[in-house]
Structures are given as C-alpha cells and as structure tokens.
C-alpha cells in the first residue's frame, strides 16, 4: 500500500517536472527566434553568393519558420513578461490581438513563398524579401532593442 503510494507520487512528480520543463515559454520562444536567425544567416549567405544554393537547406529554413509562426501566439502567456534576455516588449500584452495577427502574417508569407524559395536562387531572393517584411513588421513594434 505504502509502496504503491510512493510509486504513484513519484510518477506524478516526474510528469509534472516534464511538463514544467516543456512549458517555459520564455526559453522556448527565445530558442525559436535564435533558430530563425541561424536559418536566416544561411539563406542570406546563399543570396550573397557566399555559399552555394541548396534547396534542402532552404526547405529546412522555411519549415522551421513555419513551425515558429504556429507556436508564437501561445508562447506569450500573462506572467511571462520578464525573464532571461527577454526582448519582448510590454506592448505585446497590450495589443495581443495585433501581435497574433502579425504572427499569422509571418506564417502566411512563409507558406506562400516556400515553393518559390526552394525552386531557384532568384526565387529565394524574392521569397526572403517578402518573408523578411513580416519579420520586420512584428519586430518593429514588439521587440526591444538589445545591448
């Protein structure tokens, strides 16, 4: 009886720990943005002729950006305003609807331009310009400058 209770308690606390580790929104969104940046660097190098055009890498970039756009709106719960190297502006919580719309626009630009980007270098340049605009439009209003 006691053993079962202990085992049950252990199981529950393990689950809870796992859930907490998964749901640190600040860490998660920071990592997503950092990954966005890594993919952007690769893609920009291709655009500048500093590395050869590679459709697989472009596909990976667009896939990660699409995934980010889907996750973003849920990663800014109340109470996550501060913490870490947080560059999230307080305006996000003041205008959450607009922020979510901008995240959706990002997702749409990524989806609409994915085929073109993977097809050719010329297509990639157009695609990145279009997607970049959606990155900027959110960052301009909702991201704080950093040291």
């Amino acid at each position: 009886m006691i053993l079962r209770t202990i085992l049950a308690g252990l199981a529950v606390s393990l689950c809870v720990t796992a859930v907490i580790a998964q749901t640190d929104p600040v860490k998660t969104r920071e990592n997503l943005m950092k990954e966005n940046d890594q993919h952007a660097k690769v893609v920009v190098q291709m655009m500048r002729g500093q590395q050869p055009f590679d459709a697989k890498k472009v596909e990976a970039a667009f896939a990660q950006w699409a995934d980010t756009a889907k996750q973003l709106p849920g990663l800014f719960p109340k109470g996550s305003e501060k913490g870490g190297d947080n560059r999230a502006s307080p305006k996000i919580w003041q205008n959450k609807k607009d922020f979510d719309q901008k995240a959706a626009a990002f997702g749409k630009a990524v989806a609409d331009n994915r085929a073109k980007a993977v097809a050719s270098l010329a297509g990639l340049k157009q695609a990145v310009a279009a997607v970049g605009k959606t990155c900027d439009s959110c960052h301009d209003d909702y991201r704080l400058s950093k040291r």
Partner: protein
Amino acid sequence: MIRKLLLASVIAILLAFGVLWWLTIPEIVVAASLPPHKPDLSNGHEMFLAGGCSSCHATPNQNDHNKLGGGMALKTPFGTFYPPNISSDAHDGIGGWTEAQFITAMTEGTSPSGEPLYPAFPYTSYQHMTAGDLRDLFAYLKTLPAVQGRVRDHDLRFPFNVRRGVGVWKLLFLDGAPFKPDSTKSAQWNRGAYLVNGPGHCAECHSPRNAFGAIIESERFSGGPSPDGHGGIPNITQFKLKDWSEADFVEVLTTGHMPDFDRVSGPMREVVQNTSQLTKEDRMAMAVYLKSLPPIEGSPPPKKK
C-alpha cells in the same frame, strides 16, 4: 564664537556661489570673428542628415521630417526633455538667430539668451563640427518651413532643473575641441571619423554614461542601456562586430539590415532614414571608420531579475 563661525560660513558659501557663477559664465562665439562665407546648401543638407536633427526636432505624429516644430518627449533618467522648435520661424524657432548664435549653441551649448543648453542636445559631439559646415547647416535650416508654436519646458527632477548647474557640467565634460584629423590615416577614414564623432554623434547613444550623464570615455561606442529604460543599445566596436565587413556597415546605414537580414530596431530606424540619404561616399567613409574601432568590451549589462 558661534556668531563668528556662522559669519565665516555664510561668507564662505557666498564666495563659493560667486566662484561657481563666474566659472559658469557662458562662452559665446562672436559674429565679428567669422570670416565671409558663401553657404553651400547641399552640404548643409548633408549635415542635416548626418546630424539627425529631424529625429529629435521634427513635430511628432506627422511624417514631414522638414517640419521642425519640436515637442517630442525624450525620456531619460533625469526627467523628460522636450526638444524645442528649431524651424525657420523668426518668433518661435531659430529664424531670427544669427550665424554666430547658431554656432555658439552647437559648439558651446549656450543659447542666444546666454543660458546653458542641456546636453540631451548633443553639442558634446556637434562641438567637433567646423564653422563652415555649421554655417552651411544653418543656411539649410532656414530654407525649411516655418512652424509656429513654442514647445513646453522640460520636465526634470531637482537638481537637474536648475539650468545654471549645466554650466558646471560643461566645465567638466565639454572640451570644446574641434575635430583633429589623424595624419596617419586616409582622407576617407578621417571623413568617416569626422562624420561619426561630429554631426553623426553616434557615441551619444552607443556609449555608457556615468552618474552625471556624461559618456565614460574609455568605453565609448561599447553600448549601454536605453535612456527610456526599455531595452539596450548595442556595442558597435570590433568587440561585438568583428565579423562585420565594411560593406556590412554600409548596408546597415543604407537599409538597416544586418548581416543576418535582421533589421535594427527602435530609434536606430530613424537614424537609418537619415543615413540612407547620405552620399554613398559618406556612408562608406563612416563604415571604414566604424570598422576600425578598437574592440572594447565595456561594462556588462546589469543582471535581469
């Protein structure tokens, strides 16, 4: 005995005030010292862009950067500043100023009425500009539209609202030095150094400041906290930017895009609106100079709780 002590203290305090008053008598540039000069309006325009005048002085909530009616709120740790009207209006702006008065404001930080100007107006950088460039800039400013209306006073905490005190600050932190070219460097580097340290006043945002609000000289360009308390301003020395080429610096000044296609944020976007209109030569000169900045780590940002 106590009366003598009291008398001595009163005299000492009066003497101290007297000395401070004398020390803070404003420096001014006298009209008679200026040789004849034919204004070059296109140079004036270049100085206007490099100097970023409209970023602080343009009337807020409208898109015309040539309407310099002032009034934008500039939040700082000392209180909120409201940049004045510097349009060509003769009554509410600087249309009635003389060249000498304009040069005095820009290089000595003194107003035509003899009062010190707060260094939120970055004459600590503008002081490095040549009289010729300042006269061209003044002529250019006078071609811009007149805007009516004076701006409200600054809203500063005591003791910063005692204007005369700025005279003491200037004694400590304004060296009055014109730009000195480095003869071991190219003309292009020197042009860049002049633009960045004079009209560009880049270090005014991109440097940490001490408790008196003056730039910590040894950490110039290494970034600092944003004066309005939100976010930070990056280190632009080679400590942070050693992977950037001169072309990368030109790109930022032209489009605001950094090497990973990310874009500069906040007030830097305003800066780029101006620098993007500078001549290609001037942007390249600034890039050459900025790329040459020795690596400075600066103080780390305070740990967030």
